[in-house]
């Protein structure tokens, strides 16, 4: 969800900011870190207008009740944060606790020996409080390196109920042929069937992630992620890409999707203003629409459903893709390891924190909170998201987070070429295969 809130322009300032911040950190954190026993825990997290106040409240509650141990939380913007974290980990300026995206991302940090194995620090009852499929994102080779610290973020198909009614569609598409049929109906009404922010390739990636899962099952991507030779050549990849090209050729995304931005809210506005019928987006879409087009959400015009099934596909229709969650991890060299673990265990499952998350429209990765969701605000939506995650046999992490950074960049570039008809599915496969 943080990705959605991030303005791309901040990347322009990334290098400068990261350097400047590191330089200042040198000066200020020196004496504090050498204190050792005082238990001053530095926590790094992401900037998020809705979430940060909740986190600040939790930190001050923790500080008030934790005796000598004090936590200080710092927030960073998404893309610069990745860069800052990558260079700070393992340096003397590393934080004690840091937010990460789990999966492939976390694996990189673990492999470089910068993350503490929390297996012995956390007791089983604490670990069991989380949804297993989400907890898996912080577990590598059976060892626990990350603890889920906010809401789950599966990808779902959102739609505008008014547009559907206008086009004579009574139910959201459940199968691929349904979807194609609905696209044609909306096109006949001169409405863009699907809003897509194609200037940012990760929005296009969601289509490939879901289609590959539905067509070939989650195993295909497991092979890709493991770097198995020829994994990209799996026929399911070509099939999924061909289906995408079919959507493009059909005009499912209109003609100018390549100029639409997600950070600038272009695709979301198309949906809420009724100029597009559907949008495939992460679960943060709801909170985003609630903030930018409150009437649209409050009047019940925003609909949501699971990704359509594909006839003869190998993947389970209940499989989901997206970001399981963001995680808190402890750095391997942290001098305040005990205090850091104490901070994590006493905050992320705290009932007041969980309640505050639900209030801002997030669905915490805590097992058995369905009743709490039902009685909370936005209950229809939050229970849908919770059910999606709870019942999913497989939760594939967003590929751009799961793959090594270089491969992920290449993937986004090549995929954008397919969406813009600059490359064929076959060219995509051979380009990725050469990587």
């Amino acid at each position, binding site marked *: 969800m943080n990705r959605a809130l991030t303005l791309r322009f901040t990347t*322009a*300032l990334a290098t400068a900011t990261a350097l400047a911040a590191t330089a200042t950190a040198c000066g200020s954190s020196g004496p504090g870190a050498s204190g050792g026993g005082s238990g001053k825990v530095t926590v790094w997290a992401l900037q998020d207008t809705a979430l940060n106040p909740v986190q600040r409240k939790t930190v001050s509650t923790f500080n008030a009740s934790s005796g000598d141990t004090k936590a200080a939380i710092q927030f960073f913007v998404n893309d610069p944060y990745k860069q800052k974290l990558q*260079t700070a980990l393992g340096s003397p300026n590393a934080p004690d606790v840091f937010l990460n995206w789990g999966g492939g991302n976390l694996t990189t940090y673990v492999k470089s020996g*910068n993350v503490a194995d929390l297996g012995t620090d956390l007791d089983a009852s604490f670990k069991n409080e989380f949804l297993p499929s989400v907890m898996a994102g912080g577990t590598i080779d059976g060892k626990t390196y990350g603890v889920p610290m906010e809401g789950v973020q599966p990808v779902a198909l959102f739609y505008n109920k008014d547009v559907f009614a206008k086009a004579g569609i009574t139910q959201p598409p459940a199968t691929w042929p349904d979807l194609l049929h609905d696209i044609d109906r909306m096109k006949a009404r001169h409405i863009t069937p699907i809003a897509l922010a194609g*200037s940012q390739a990760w929005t296009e990636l969601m289509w490939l992630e879901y289609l590959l899962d539905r067509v070939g099952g989650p195993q295909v991507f497991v092979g890709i992620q493991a770097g198995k030779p020829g994994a990209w050549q799996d026929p399911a990849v070509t099939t999924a890409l061909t289906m995408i090209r079919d959507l493009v050729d059909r005009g499912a995304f209109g*003609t100018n999707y390549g100029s639409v931005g997600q950070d600038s809210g272009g695709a979301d506005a198309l949906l809420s203003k009724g100029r597009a019928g559907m949008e495939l987006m992460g679960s943060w879409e709801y909170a985003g629409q609630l903030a930018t087009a409150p009437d649209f959400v409050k009047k019940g015009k925003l609909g949501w459903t699971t990704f359509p099934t594909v006839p003869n596909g190998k993947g389970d229709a209940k499989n989901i893709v997206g970001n399981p969650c963001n995680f808190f991890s402890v750095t391997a060299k942290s001098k305040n390891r005990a205090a850091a673990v104490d901070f994590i265990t006493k905050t992320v499952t705290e009932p007041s924190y969980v309640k505050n998350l639900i209030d801002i429209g997030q669905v915490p990765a805590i097992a058995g909170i369905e009743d709490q969701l039902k009685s909370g605000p936005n209950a229809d939506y939050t229970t849908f998201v919770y059910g999606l995650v709870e019942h999913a046999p497989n939760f594939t992490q967003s590929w751009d987070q799961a793959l090594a*950074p*270089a491969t992920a960049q290449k993937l986004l570039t090549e995929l954008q*070429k397919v969406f*813009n008809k600059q490359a064929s599915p076959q060219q995509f496969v051979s380009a990725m295969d050469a990587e």
Partner: protein
Amino acid sequence: MNTALRRSDGRPGALWAVPALLYFALFAVVPMALVVVLSFCRWNGLGSPHWAGTANWTRLLHDPDLGQSLRLSLLLTVVNWAVQTLICLPLGVWCAGHQRARAVLSTLFFVPLLMSSAAVALLFAALLDPNFGLAHAIGPWLGVDDGNFIGDPHLALWTVTAVVTWQFVPFHTLLYQAAARQVPAQLYEAATIDGAGRWRQFLSVTLPQLRHTVVTSSVLMLVGSLTYFDIVLILTNGGPGTSTRILPLHMYLTGFSSFDMGYAGVLAVLLLVAGTTLSLLVVRVTGFRRMTSRREGL
């Protein structure tokens, strides 16, 4: 003795340059040397760099995106130079005159200069939104019915060029304006007596007098365009596909998105060499190095 004499004259000795040289060494020479070292290392930003020998450099030969990014960088550089010079020179000369409403119009021209690159890029990102921005309205007028300027692989680079031009025209116009005002009025008076018309005066008096300014402005434009980066990053991020992935952006994305610092170092060295060569070349070809005055006796 000689030095003492010069110092007593209050003219600068070598010692005067020490602070500037130190500063330059610390913030330019040292990082450049480090980049060269880095280009021989493998480093993803985590932990310490590992020596990789010439592996990164041999990769340069097999980089599928390198040719494209070099070509785009050169294209952007040449087009920017041609378009901006053609606009800025006449505009600057005009602004140096005494026409009515000149002051008001000049002020308007300079507005883009007041904005930071990030602000310019964000402004145009909003304007170029094909559904809710200005692109929707003026697209059809320019033959782009759906307003798909930055999303069309064939149009993206030209759109970026237009934005960059919009941003930098005021700066170079300002240079030309200042230079045109320095042209002694006597020259024009003499030309008028000789019966030269406005156009003749421009060609035979103004243009030769602006020669050094043309060189200065060109060096700034050429080297600037070669290392141009921020607006492209924000507007297109190199996309669609690799349609606007110019060399500096290729370097940035390799270093800070793919976390391949070693190879990014190679690209940085490449840029450094290209930039230095280019500016030396311009200076040499134009005879700027000789520093001769065109205004002897005045």
